[in-house]
């Protein structure tokens, strides 16, 4: 036996340590709600995300713009715990995912451009399934409330394959918000929506700015993205090349500014 090692070691899970020491992983902390430190994601020789640092507090809404191939979706995947970073770490309320995966994932809601829905289940069955996975108690009430919220109460018993793209997108949003997450990630939520559906989505996203949540949205839609944001970043070549508070941005000239930044950095 090596000096200093013991044969009688017993594995104790992080959750058990928290319980024994009285640490409440849901308690408010001094740490930022969402923190990314040196995030890198490599796919073979390609570096999709190249050292992104990020710190967002509760109530902040960060919109990330960028051209195709900038690594926005890869970054969002890592922030949301869907993709493992090659290097770096993501913390929610100071906790890395490795310490308490269950608590970490319970605090996150993801709206991907893929819906995460089962085409042969009804809208209600999809939400009920995810409600069970998140261990919700009042599932029926929450389903009714969220279907109403996204304007699909009358489509609850329709199979997802019978819904239009816009309806599926709204149902995906209901799925992402069903468990009332602290941190919400939105990947291209406006893609393929008609003006009416986009308006409804805008209304729901505005409700997310209730000061209780942190939201990160990736979008190509400059107008919608700016309207929602409290902070804006432009990502090119896997890095944040431009970042500013939304209150300091000249909305009218932003499109020109965006193209100038992208062209300069591409």
């Amino acid at each position, binding site marked *: 036996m090596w000096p200093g090692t013991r044969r009688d070691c017993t594995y104790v899970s992080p959750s058990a340590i928290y319980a024994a020491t009285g640490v409440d992983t849901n308690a408010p902390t001094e740490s930022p709600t969402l923190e990314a430190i040196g995030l890198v994601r490599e796919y073979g020789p390609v570096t999709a995300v190249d050292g992104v640092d990020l710190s967002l507090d509760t109530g902040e809404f960060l919109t990330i713009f960028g051209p195709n191939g900038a690594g926005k979706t890869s970054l969002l995947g890592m922030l949301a715990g869907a993709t493992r970073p090659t290097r770096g770490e993501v913390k929610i309320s100071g906790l890395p995912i490795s310490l308490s995966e269950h608590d970490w994932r319970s605090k996150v809601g993801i709206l991907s451009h893929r819906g995460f829905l089962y085409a042969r289940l009804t809208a209600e069955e999809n939400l009920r399934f*995810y409600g*069970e996975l998140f261990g919700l108690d009042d599932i029926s009430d929450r389903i009714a409330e969220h279907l109403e919220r996204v304007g699909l109460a009358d489509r609850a018993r329709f199979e997802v394959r019978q819904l239009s793209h816009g309806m599926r997108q709204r149902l995906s949003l209901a799925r992402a918000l069903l468990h009332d997450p602290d941190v919400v990630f939105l990947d291209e939520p406006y893609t393929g929506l008609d003006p009416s559906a986009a308006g409804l989505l805008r209304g729901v996203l505005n409700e997310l700015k209730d000061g209780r949540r942190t939201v990160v949205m990736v979008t190509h839609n400059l107008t919608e993205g700016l309207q929602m944001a409290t902070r804006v970043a432009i990502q090119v070549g896997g890095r944040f090349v431009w970042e500013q508070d939304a209150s300091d941005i000249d909305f009218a000239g932003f499109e020109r500014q965006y193209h100038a930044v992208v062209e300069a950095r591409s």
Partner: protein
Amino acid sequence: MSAYFRQVCAIVKKDVLLEVRSRDRITAMGAFAVLAGVLFNFSIDTTTTRPQDVAAGLIWMTLIFGGLLGVGRTFHLEAQDGAFQGVLTSPVPKDAIFLAKVIANFTLLYAVSLLVLGVFALFFSLDIGPNLPWIMVILALGSLGFVALATLFAAVSTGTTMGETLLPVLVFPLLVPMVVFGVGSTGRLMNGRPFDEVEGNVRMLGAFAFAAVAAGAVLFRYVVED
């Protein structure tokens, strides 16, 4: 109900519901089982070979090939619209996802294995009545071991460009112990031998099944994490 058990039940219920609605896999597996039984019936010369001597091997081969048709597609339904990513990003332990998939696939395959047994008993005029309960137990253990390995490797092969082509290459070598113990015990019971004679084989088959489930539950996390 514990949170873990509740999550497992939710995934099993969802998988069974999807299968009931689509009937994709059960139809393919059931049709394969019946057709294989018919073809094997015509391929054996009963004037030189006793059907009960070869039936066990043919039943197990039909079960394995038919099983691959269904279990191999486990994650294809999940891949549509990225639904599996939604499950992976929810607070469900990865081993719970694996166990749920194994239970759902086992339900499907065991139903097909009983169909296979019925088809072969009919076409090969097998007298399996006295040992039927033990044969059903053996098929259950074999189905469980097969499903555990095939589910794990279906997750591996789904993420590759070779897809379903890769699955048999990965799974078949690992099925050798299961085939040896399964065919040996089923064949003797079909020939009217007492259970005591095959008890050792059945124990080994059971150990193989539970080892496959345990190994799959531990390894599944490393297969599905991106």
